[in-house]
């Protein structure tokens, strides 16, 4: 299998959740440039949007990869859906292409079936990027404990990596 890409394709993966956002900047050949998560207090959407703006200004990505929240089965909160819509509008203003992937597409892209959990995908990514993500893998989420905010970062890496792998 061969990939033909322009010299520098830069993708900004953004995973929004109830806690804030996870972000990952990747370049072709799956080079992880920047990654992390941002938790927002108060007006979460404004803070997160401002952070996305800073990332766009700093890295000038060609593409922003986001989660599809409009699909049937998506249970994202209205605030998160609104944040994603705001990011899409920002991308359009900056003339940046947007690609959206559903959770099923991500699971199918990284695992042998589309029934895997977010943690399974995170495990795969931690093995793929041991130096960058290996030591940041959170413990598996249980019903009694809130999901670790680092999981947003893994989701963002998954979105960016899936875009680079799919070649769409």
């Amino acid at each position, binding site marked *: 299998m061969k*990939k033909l890409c*322009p*010299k520098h394709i830069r993708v900004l993966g953004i995973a929004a959740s109830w806690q804030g956002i996870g972000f990952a900047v990747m370049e072709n050949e799956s080079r992880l440039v920047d990654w992390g998560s941002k938790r927002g207090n108060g007006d979460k959407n404004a803070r997160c949007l401002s952070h996305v703006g800073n990332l766009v200004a700093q890295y000038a990505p060609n593409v922003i990869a986001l989660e599809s929240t409009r699909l049937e089965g998506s249970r994202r909160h209205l605030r998160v859906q609104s944040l994603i819509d705001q990011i899409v509008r920002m991308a359009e203003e900056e003339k940046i292409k947007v690609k959206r992937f559903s959770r099923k597409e991500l699971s199918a892209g990284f695992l042998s079936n589309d029934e895997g959990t977010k943690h399974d995908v995170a495990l795969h990514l931690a093995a793929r990027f041991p130096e960058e993500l290996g030591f940041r893998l959170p413990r598996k989420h249980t019903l009694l404990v809130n999901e670790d905010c680092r999981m947003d970062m893994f989701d963002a890496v998954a979105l960016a990596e899936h875009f680079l792998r799919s070649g769409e």
Partner: protein
Amino acid sequence: MEFIHTHFMASKQLPNYLLSYRKRSALSQGEVAFLLGIRSGSKISHYERFKREPGLQTALAYEAIYQKPVSELFPGLFEKIQREVKARAKILEHRTFSGNMIQVATRKRKALATIVSAEAKSQSTQS
């Protein structure tokens, strides 16, 4: 099967990858500042966000910290400088080296041809 991303404009290479290397090593900006012998961590932020270029001593200290050559830590900056040097080498190539012995002139031309034909360093930091 071939994947083609040709409908996306290629973006410019980033001036440096200092932030990536610092995050990989799990060092804080303050810790890197300490290793570099700099008092404030804000300078580190400026370097990492491309707002400021470090001096030679700091660049070499970065090489010692991250164990990567300076040209790999600063590929965008290196490419820019390399392009400028190549352009100047092309100008120098067309000069006649009067007063030089033939062997010296030949050697100079060979050195200049090497500079002009040098390939830009590819990204090899994903290791």
